[in-house]
């Protein structure tokens, strides 16, 4: 990881690899196709793998043989065991005309070269994929610091830089068509260390090796941002200390108006840092707090300080107390139901960082250097530990889901009995007849619910609309909220009336609300509805599927009697006599709102 590697010299990295017992670690098979000499990157690649817990074997293809090797033949280079293929197609070798002689080309010649390079990329990507399913990492073309056309290059969209951008776009788009293939923007590594530190012109001429040691380190860093998530080794949770990390000063001593946080120096350094944390939150990273403080003091900052960019809603879990931080990190991992090895912990105290490193070596513990708050944002942005291969819409909501789960769980550990726990959730159940707003979600529930579903009948929106309009049907939904947030529509019941009987056509609940007695309240209200419509009997059915075994005994458990028990192994039918009191409702709901 970049944060640790900064201090390691090239010789020391090789020394550590010479000494380490790598044989016990799982293997990581990396293959390098290239048209430059890039062997000196090997220690960096192997060292990154070593920090990740892997023993990397790096196989280099022959110099300038990318096309031939992608076409096949050498199964030692590309095979089923290959985890990742790194492609370095350097423009100076690939097309000396585009790279070094651009001014001399006429538009037709440029177009011909562009086509040739695109055909090359197409054939190489297709050829690699035919030989391995491993991750393809194509390290793209760098843009020149001194384009062949000079300042004119930036004025036109046919210049050297524009052409290189178009080639990169083509390769990126082509890779997107493949599963498990990514484009690595080499310009990021180039920008970070600057062209003056990136190219070694001596070794370019001596041995076709264009990159400096610093460039190789930066390129390996960038490539491993992709390889870590490939192996599930990316970090998922950021745990933050508060005093002198999120703000300057100590809230317990300096008070709300005394801490350093704001739009201008020096508080602006902390604001910028918080903004970067919020960026991670929106990428699906879980944010948690681990701080030695009086808990109300910390929440007062979150609620009342006008310059807090990080808000309470971003925090999925918190341990704010005087216990040791290793114990608190263990507690957070358990609250959030994630592994310690997916956590990154930031603190300005060397004592805390060392404690965590010693007690919990699987946590990435990073010291935020005292007196260098201006560097905090950059440190976090550069650490590269949180990268995932994609960012989805769902990732953006992950923090809220974990927050609700962690809150319920931490309440559960405090509660002495389940009923007390349910009561403390302050659940509000809404049971209503379907309307035009709820129909889409109800149809979706019949399509997607597999486990708590008595009949597993799948319906479209039009079907549900038909039932709603039909006088002999009732479509009832259940909506659940608790003190940690709303779950939305989580239950559906469809009743069909035939003379004096009500047949429960559909009865289902979403898995995430099971175990809270919601099903009892829902069934009881449905039975009351049937009775209210003048029915004497309710008929329940159980249609077994591969997934709904957990509800096989649902009706008998709630006072129904089976018709012809044991007669058929599959479809079972149950009756409930509506002269009887329809089962009791749990008393621990805060409120049941119903218009039935």
């Amino acid at each position, binding site marked *: 990881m970049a944060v640790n590697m900064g201090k390691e*010299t*090239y*010789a*020391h990295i*090789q*020394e550590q690899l*010479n000494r380490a017992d790598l044989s016990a670690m799982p293997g990581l098979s990396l293959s390098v196709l290239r048209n430059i*000499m890039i*062997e*000196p990157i090997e*220690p960096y690649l192997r060292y990154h793998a070593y920090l990740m817990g892997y023993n990397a074997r790096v196989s280099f293809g022959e110099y300038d043989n990318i096309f031939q090797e992608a076409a096949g033949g050498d199964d030692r280079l590309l095979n089923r065991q290959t985890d990742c293929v790194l492609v370095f197609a350097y423009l100076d070798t690939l097309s000396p005309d585009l790279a070094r002689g651009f001014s001399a080309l006429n538009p037709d010649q440029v177009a011909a070269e562009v086509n040739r390079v695109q055909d090359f990329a197409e054939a190489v990507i297709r050829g690699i994929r035919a030989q391995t399913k491993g991750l393809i990492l194509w390290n793209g073309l760098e843009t020149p610091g001194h384009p062949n056309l000079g300042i004119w290059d930036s004025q036109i969209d046919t210049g050297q830089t524009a052409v290189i951008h178009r080639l990169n776009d083509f390769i990126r788009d082509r890779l997107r068509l493949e599963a498990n293939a990514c484009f690595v923007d080499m310009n990021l590594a180039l920008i970070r260390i600057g062209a003056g530190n990136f190219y070694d012109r*001596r*070794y370019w*001429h*001596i*041995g076709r*090796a264009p990159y*400096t*040691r610093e460039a190789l380190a930066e390129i390996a860093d960038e490539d491993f941002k992709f390889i870590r998530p490939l192996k599930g080794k990316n970090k998922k949770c950021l745990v933050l200390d508060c005093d002198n990390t999120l703000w300057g000063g100590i809230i317990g001593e300096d008070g709300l108006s005394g801490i350093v946080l704001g739009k201008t120096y020096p508080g602006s350094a902390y604001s910028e840092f918080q903004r970067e944390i919020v960026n991670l939150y929106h990428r699906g990273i879980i944010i948690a707090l681990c701080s030695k403080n009086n808990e109300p003091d910390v929440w007062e900052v979150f609620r009342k300080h006008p310059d807090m960019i990080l808000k309470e809603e971003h925090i999925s879990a918190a341990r704010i107390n005087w216990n040791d931080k290793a114990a608190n990190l263990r507690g957070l991992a358990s609250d959030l139901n994630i592994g310690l090895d997916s956590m990154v912990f930031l603190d300005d105290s060397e004592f805390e960082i060392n404690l965590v490193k010693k007690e919990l070596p699987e946590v990435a513990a990073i010291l935020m250097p005292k007196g260098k708050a201006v560097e905090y944002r950059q440190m976090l942005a550069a650490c590269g530990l949180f990268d995932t291969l994609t960012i989805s819409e769902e990732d953006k909501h992950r923090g809220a889901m974990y927050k609700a789960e962690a809150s319920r769980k931490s309440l559960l550990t405090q509660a002495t009995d389940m009923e007390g726990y349910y009561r403390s959730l302050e659940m509000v159940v809404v049971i209503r007849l379907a309307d035009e707003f709820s129909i889409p979600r109800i149809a979706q529930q019949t399509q997607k619910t597999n486990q708590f579903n008595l009949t597993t009948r799948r319906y479209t929106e039009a079907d549900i609309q038909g039932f709603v309009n039909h006088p002999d049907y009732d479509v009832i939904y259940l909506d659940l909220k608790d003190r940690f947030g709303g779950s939305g529509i989580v239950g559906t019941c469809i009743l069909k009336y035939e003379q004096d009987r009500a047949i429960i056509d559909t009865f289902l609940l979403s898995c995430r609300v099971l175990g809270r007695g919601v099903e009892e309240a829902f069934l009881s209200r449905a039975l009351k509805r049937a009775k209210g419509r003048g029915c004497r009997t309710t008929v329940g059915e159980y249609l077994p599927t591969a997934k709904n075994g957990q509800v096989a005994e649902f009706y008998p458990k709630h006072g129904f009697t089976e018709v012809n028990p044991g007669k058929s192994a599959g479809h079972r039918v149950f009756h409930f006599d509506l002269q009887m009191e329809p089962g009791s409702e749990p008393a621990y709901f805060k409120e049941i709102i119903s218009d039935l």
Partner: protein
Amino acid sequence: MKDRVLKIVSQVLNVPVELLNEESSPDTVASWDSLKHMNLILALEEEFGIQFRDEQIVEILKVGLIIEAVKEFTAA
């Protein structure tokens, strides 16, 4: 300074330092090939904060020559 050079050579070529002396070269150390020579140059430049001239890179194929080349930069 000689010891620092020997240590780097030992680490990069993965050879015990006791087996190295000023006469060690690609002829006497099996792992010292042209690729490892590149790693060696990169490690030495980092260790001493120097940049060899391009013609030096291809000439210093003996520990004794490396030490002299490093001296040239560190003496000034």
